[in-house]
């Protein structure tokens, strides 16, 4: 695991990726700090992070697109399979290296509140709570990026899907207002979601029967719930979208609330997507 971690770090610092990532992050937060803390003279550093979170849409896919896709393209994944390492060790090693690359600029950022504190009143607990949540948000997005990269051997495609997914997540709360809040509307959308899940299952397992069953059972469950009590579905979809939004949970920290459930949610997302990445890598051995 540490061999993979060290190796990945060496690769990041050999290429420009780590520097581009760090530069983007620092530049964006720097602009935010200038606008909020210096020009508008607001002493809350967490607002800067709230503004800066948009940068993840671009930089996370840049960093994660090559993680596994590149290994496949260069056929170096064969080496990883042949070495006495488990797939879990490989994925965790790679993920930790991403965290290190991410933590370096974040360490620099965490000096900012202290600097500002020299010139005025800065409430440090909310500032550092915000930085911690910012770290967790990025960590969760990186895990999603690793999974996306494990699906394809095309880096560009991995980056494209990554940007789309994170952008959708970023705007999901504003978008949820446009989704139908009626019971019927939610029901239809959930059926479509069940269908998409079935398609993904079909793609991942190449097993038609399993995919049909997954789709069929999910839709049947929805139908049963619908017949028993249709009112459950009222406003269900917008609610789900708000609940799933990683960014929305981050804004509670920006507003000065240290929310433990959000931390748990971020950890769950990390474990879930790393688990899926391991499965995706393992699946290639069985195709």
């Amino acid at each position: 695991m540490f061999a993979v971690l060290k190796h990945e770090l060496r690769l990041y610092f050999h290429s420009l990726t780590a520097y581009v990532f760090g530069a983007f992050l620092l530049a964006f937060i720097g602009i935010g700090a200038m606008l909020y803390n210096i020009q508008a003279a607001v002493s809350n550093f967490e607002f800067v992070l709230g503004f800066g979170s948009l940068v993840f849409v671009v930089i996370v896919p840049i960093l994660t697109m090559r993680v596994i896709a590149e290994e496949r393209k260069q056929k170096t994944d064969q080496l990883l399979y042949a070495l006495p390492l488990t797939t879990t060790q490989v994925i965790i090693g790679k993920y930790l290296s991403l965290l290190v690359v991410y933590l370096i600029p974040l360490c620099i950022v965490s000096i900012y509140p202290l600097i500002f504190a020299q010139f005025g009143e800065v409430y440090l607990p909310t500032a550092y709570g915000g930085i911690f949540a910012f770290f967790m948000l990025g960590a969760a997005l990186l895990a999603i990026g690793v999974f996306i990269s494990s699906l394809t051997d095309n880096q560009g495609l991995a980056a494209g899907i990554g940007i789309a997914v994170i952008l959708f997540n970023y705007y999901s709360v504003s978008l949820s207002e446009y989704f139908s809040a009626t019971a019927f509307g939610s029901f239809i959308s959930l059926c479509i979601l069940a269908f998409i899940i079935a398609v993904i299952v079909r793609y991942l397992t190449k097993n038609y029967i399993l995919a049909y069953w997954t789709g069929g059972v999910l839709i049947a469950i929805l139908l049963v719930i619908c017949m028993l009590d249709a009112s459950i579905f009222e406003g269900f979809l917008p609610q789900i979208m708000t609940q799933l939004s990683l960014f929305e949970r981050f804004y509670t920290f920006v507003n000065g609330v240290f929310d433990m459930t959000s931390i748990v949610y971020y950890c769950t997302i990390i474990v879930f997507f790393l688990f899926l990445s391991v499965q995706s890598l393992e699946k290639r051995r069985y195709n």
Partner: protein
Amino acid sequence: MISVEHLTKRYGNFTAVEDLSFEIGEGHVYGFLGPNGAGKSTTMNIMAGCLSATSGRVQIDGYDIFDDANHAKKRIGYLPEQPPLYMNETPFEYLRFVGEAKGLHGTELTRQILAVIAQTKIEEVQNRRIAELSKGYKQRVGIAQALLANPPVVILDEPTVGLDPLQIIEIRDLIKELGQNHTVIFSSHILSEAQTICDQILIIAKGKLIAFDTPENLEKKLLTAHEIHIVAEGGKQETASILKSIDGINDIRLEDNGSWVSATMKTERHDVHAISKAIFFAFAAKKHALLEMSSTKASLEDVFIELTENAETEEPLTTAANDSVETKSRESEAQ
């Protein structure tokens, strides 16, 4: 050292490897031979733990490659068809990663890296980016990677493909050298290559084992067909009638050149000289002069082509030395 039992691999409806069983002992160089698409790479990938099998078992030194992967993989050095290199690294950095992943560290790691660098003769490029290296050097770095941590089994998938003649000779010498301390299995679709460096040859075609023997034995057993070429005085018809009277020759082709006839024929008999004698006396009896006579052996290459083309009907060819394989194929037949 390695035992493969009833290995089968299917991709959807396509069967890449079918009920493959063989056993490989310690030491020596084993050649894995077959035409493209015969299932060589698939088998090697499974043996190295990169691919799962549909059914069957592979054991390395008693450790199952699927159930006890960690122990089994520590005993294998594997070079896939395309060397798995990170282009932005130098060979030294690359080897350090592989060594660490194989569980080496500290001075032992550095010592082993320097040892394999010396063994594969890549000292002069060890600090250049891999992307800048020639194909031959890349291949060597790939082999160096397989040799790290000194695994008893080294599997090389087509290590000489795409190299120039000089590089091919160097890699072959290296493989021979490795055979002294390791069990080396390498694949190739060139028979002459296997003939020169292997102690044992496994021929597979269409996913099945069709021969497993030493190159000499394969030659002895398979090279029965000889071609005899004569040039004789006289007409086409007379020559044909003389030749037809001799036992043991077939497939006669005649060509009339006016004053003489040239004929080419085949014989399956081992004692070619007896046939030559019979031809000589038959022509002498009819008072026709034999102007030329020569015989040529079919090459192992021809046999290889014939064997791999008729893979459907052939059963594995083995000698007593490979009893286990023979009994296994009989067992599978009995089933």
